[in-house]
Each structure stands twice: as structure tokens, then as C-alpha cells.
């Protein structure tokens, strides 16, 4: 049996380390193993280093590093299979729930919102993180790891942005813009310039980048998706006519035409004043300086689908809550007086976007004036 010298052992250990084995425990294992092989097979007449080089390839398929990588994989993935299971279950569940939720939404069935929230929360906070952790462990290059992280963040952010948009929650547009920013300025550059350098992946990278660019471009295109301008205009026009008719009726002296119940006259004017004040309050809540009310109203009336719901205005301590209650009571009293139903409910107003609220109030004003002038 050949006995290795200290220099030879040091040489082997250094070489193992140079070949990418960093775990000390593993270095010791391999060193002993290689020494055993040399002790049994080496005869002193051969060149030691050449012999060592000739037996080393027995330990791997591509490079010695494989052993270290495999060990890392097994050590860090004690719960690898549990993670995989959770990933597949959460992924399958959220995929089907999104589909079912969409069906509910399209059919206007109750529960769609809950399904969406559940599905997208699972997708963004469970499925994608686990998927990226597993994928990251499989990669060795830092660049590939960053690509995976960027892709996962983009996936989570865009899903949440869509959820926020569908639910009319605040900050949806900010989230949407950030997601697209991550896609265009973080993910795509790293992915593209990383992949294009390698001749093997060059074509694939170019094709995928084109697909991602087009998909991202399409998403960017619908960033400000709302009704067409003609549609906007039509709604604003209709609203203007309501306001004009209301103003015409307000200026008209009711006693000129018909004999009007005197209290109705009085009550109508009172009620209209109340509603007008609420309108001013609502408008000034979004207008910066409160001076340019007319412009603020115009902007408000133009916005609809993309505008978030202004529920906090009507919250218990919101600026409009008490006023809305007073108006509701007065509308009821007025209905009794005029012996006609107006069909207006303060509850409807509470959950609407601000532009809808203003429109609703305008319509109410017109109705009151019409009632006032037709009641005799």
C-alpha cells in the first residue's frame, strides 16, 4: 500500500477546494476517499499528479462542484417535498378560484370579491414566493437568481394591482405602475442581456423578450382603460342637462303657473339648499384650495370607472355623514308632504365613487324641483 506524503495530501485538499467544494465536512470526506483510492491503486512509478487527475473524473459527471450542490440541495431542502406540495396545492387552488371568481363576477353572483381576494392572496403570498425559493435553489448564478426574484415580484405586484383595480381599492394605479416598472426596467434588462450572451440561449431569449415586451406593452396600454371619450362626454352632457333643468326650475317662480301648496314650496327650497351645501362640501374635499370649485366639479364629474370609491367621506366621522342623514330625513318628510315617492336612499350613495354621488345628488335636486312645480 502506498503512503501519501503530507505535501500530497495538502495538494489534494487544495485542489478539491479549488474545484468548488467549500463545505469543510465535505472536503474531509472527499479527501479521505480520494486518498483511499490512491492508496489502493497507485504505484509509485507513475506520476502522482497525473494519476490523481486520472481518478478525479470518477467522482462526477460534469464537475466536482456537483457534489457540493447536491449536498446543499439536500441540506436546505429538508422540507423540500412539503414546500413542493404546498406550492402545487396553493397554485391549483388559486388558479381555479380565480376562474370561478371571474365567472361569479361576470354573472353578478354574490361572493366574487371574496373568491378574488382569497385566490390572489394565495397566489401572490404563498404560491409565487415558494415557487421562486425552489427555483432560486436550483440556480447557481447570481444573475439567474435575480431574474427569478424580479419575475416573482412582478407577478405578485401585477396580480395585486389587478385585484385592487377590480375591488376599487386605493393605490391600485400606483401598484400597477410599479409592477410595470419592475417588468420593463428590472426584469427585462437582466433577463435579456444575461441570456443573449450565451449562444445556446440567444434565440430563445430574444423570442421570449419580444413576447414579454408585447405582453408588457399591452398591459401598459390598458393602464388608463376606461369608457371611450364619447361615452364620457355623453355622461357629462346628460349631467349638464340635469343641472340646467334644475336651475331653470329653481329660478322659476312657482306661483306664476299653478297654485302650489305653500309649505311644499318652502320645504323644497330648504331641501335643495341642504343638498347644494353637501355638494360643495364633497367637491371641496378633493379640490386642493377650495377656490376653483367649478373646475374641481367638472373633473369629478368626468371621472368614473377608474376613480376609487370615496367611502370615508360617509364614514361615521366623515365630513358628509351627518349632512347625508339630515337630507335623508328631509327627503322622507318632503315625500309625505307631496304625497309622492322620490325613491331616493342615502345608502345607495355611500358606496359609490364621488362622481356618481354628485350625479345622484343632481338628479335628486331636479326631482325635488319637478315635484314642487307639478304638485297642486
Amino acid at each position, binding site marked *: 500500500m502506498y*503512503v*501519501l*506524503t*503530507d505535501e500530497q*495530501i495538502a495538494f489534494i485538499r487544495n485542489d478539491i477546494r479549488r474545484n468548488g467544494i467549500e*463545505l469543510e*465536512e*465535505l472536503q*474531509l*470526506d*472527499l*479527501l*479521505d*476517499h480520494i*486518498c*483511499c*483510492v490512491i492508496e489502493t491503486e497507485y504505484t509509485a512509478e507513475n506520476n502522482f499528479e497525473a494519476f490523481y487527475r486520472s481518478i478525479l473524473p*470518477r*467522482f*462526477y*459527471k460534469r464537475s466536482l462542484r*456537483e*457534489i457540493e450542490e*447536491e*449536498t446543499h*440541495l*439536500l*441540506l436546505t431542502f*429538508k422540507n423540500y417535498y412539503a414546500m413542493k406540495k404546498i406550492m402545487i396545492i396553493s397554485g391549483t387552488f388559486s388558479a381555479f378560484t380565480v376562474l370561478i371568481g371571474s365567472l361569479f363576477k361576470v354573472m353578478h353572483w354574490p361572493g366574487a370579491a371574496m373568491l378574488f381576494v382569497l385566490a390572489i392572496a394565495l397566489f401572490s403570498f404563498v404560491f409565487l414566493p415558494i415557487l421562486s425559493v425552489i427555483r432560486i435553489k436550483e440556480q447557481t448564478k447570481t444573475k439567474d437568481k435575480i431574474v427569478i426574484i424580479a419575475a416573482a415580484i412582478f407577478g405578485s405586484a401585477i396580480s395585486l394591482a389587478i385585484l385592487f383595480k377590480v375591488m376599487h381599492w386605493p393605490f391600485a394605479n400606483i401598484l400597477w405602475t410599479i409592477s410595470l416598472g419592475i417588468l420593463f426596467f428590472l426584469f427585462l434588462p437582466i433577463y435579456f442581456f444575461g441570456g443573449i450572451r450565451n449562444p445556446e440561449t440567444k434565440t430563445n431569449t430574444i423570442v421570449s423578450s419580444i413576447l414579454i415586451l408585447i405582453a408588457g406593452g399591452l398591459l401598459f396600454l390598458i393602464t388608463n382603460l376606461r369608457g371611450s371619450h364619447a361615452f364620457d362626454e355623453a355622461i357629462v352632457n346628460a349631467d349638464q342637462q340635469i343641472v340646467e333643468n334644475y336651475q331653470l326650475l329653481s329660478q322659476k317662480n312657482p306661483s306664476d303657473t299653478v297654485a302650489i301648496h305653500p309649505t311644499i314650496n318652502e320645504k323644497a327650497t330648504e331641501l335643495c339648499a341642504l343638498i347644494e351645501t353637501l355638494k360643495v362640501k364633497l367637491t371641496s374635499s378633493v379640490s386642493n384650495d377650495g377656490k376653483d370649485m367649478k373646475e374641481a366639479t367638472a373633473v369629478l364629474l368626468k371621472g368614473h370607472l377608474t376613480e376609487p370609491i370615496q367611502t370615508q367621506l360617509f364614514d361615521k366621522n366623515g365630513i358628509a355623514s351627518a349632512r347625508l342623514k339630515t337630507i335623508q330625513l328631509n327627503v322622507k318628510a318632503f315625500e309625505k308632504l307631496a304625497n309622492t315617492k322620490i325613491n331616493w336612499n342615502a345608502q345607495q350613495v355611500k358606496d359609490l365613487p364621488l362622481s356618481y354621488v354628485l350625479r345622484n345628488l343632481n338628479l335628486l335636486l331636479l326631482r325635488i324641483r319637478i315635484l314642487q312645480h307639478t304638485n297642486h
Partner: protein
Amino acid sequence: MYSSELIKGTLKTIILKLLSDNDKMYGYEITHKVKELTGGKIQLTEGALYPTLHALEAQGILSTDVVNVGNRIRKYYSVTPNGKKVATEKVNEFSEFLDTMIFLLDLQPKLG
């Protein structure tokens, strides 16, 4: 020699059985012993053996002993008391698996 896919699925069982039967063994000894016992039909690769040994150690199934051998260090692996149970389970499971495979592949030696 059998394909690496077949050996991969049984590697843990082989290691645990060997270490249960022997007090303690080092890596080279394990590969050598397996090769010897199977007449060279099963040759464990180092690339599979050491990662598995380290994983089993991390799970508390194996423990290690460090011994100076001449001018280098040798790591001996042995089964912990907890690991003995796992070893028995693994061997039993594989034995049942074998029975099932024999039945499934219709390998029962025919009588007469």
C-alpha cells in the same frame, strides 16, 4: 451494473442497512463494501453518497466521529438510536415494495 435511477431510490436504504449492521463506517468503506457484497453490480457514486450522508446527518439519523488516520482526518458515520428505527422502517418498506414489484411484473418463479 444497475442504472443510476434504480440505485438512487434505494441509496438511503442501502446506507442505513449497512451502517446498522456495522458499528461505524467511512465513505470509501461503504462504497467498497457495497461493491464487494454485490459483486460489482451496485457501485455507489461519490456524487450521490456524500450528499445523502450529510443530509441523513442533518436529520439526526446518522452521527459522525472524527479519527486521525496517519496524516489526515477520517470521518466515520454511524446510525443514531433514532436512526435505527428509520433503518428498520426503510428496509421493511423496501421489502414490501419488492414483493409488490415481483407480483406486479409477474416474476414469480413458476412451479413444476
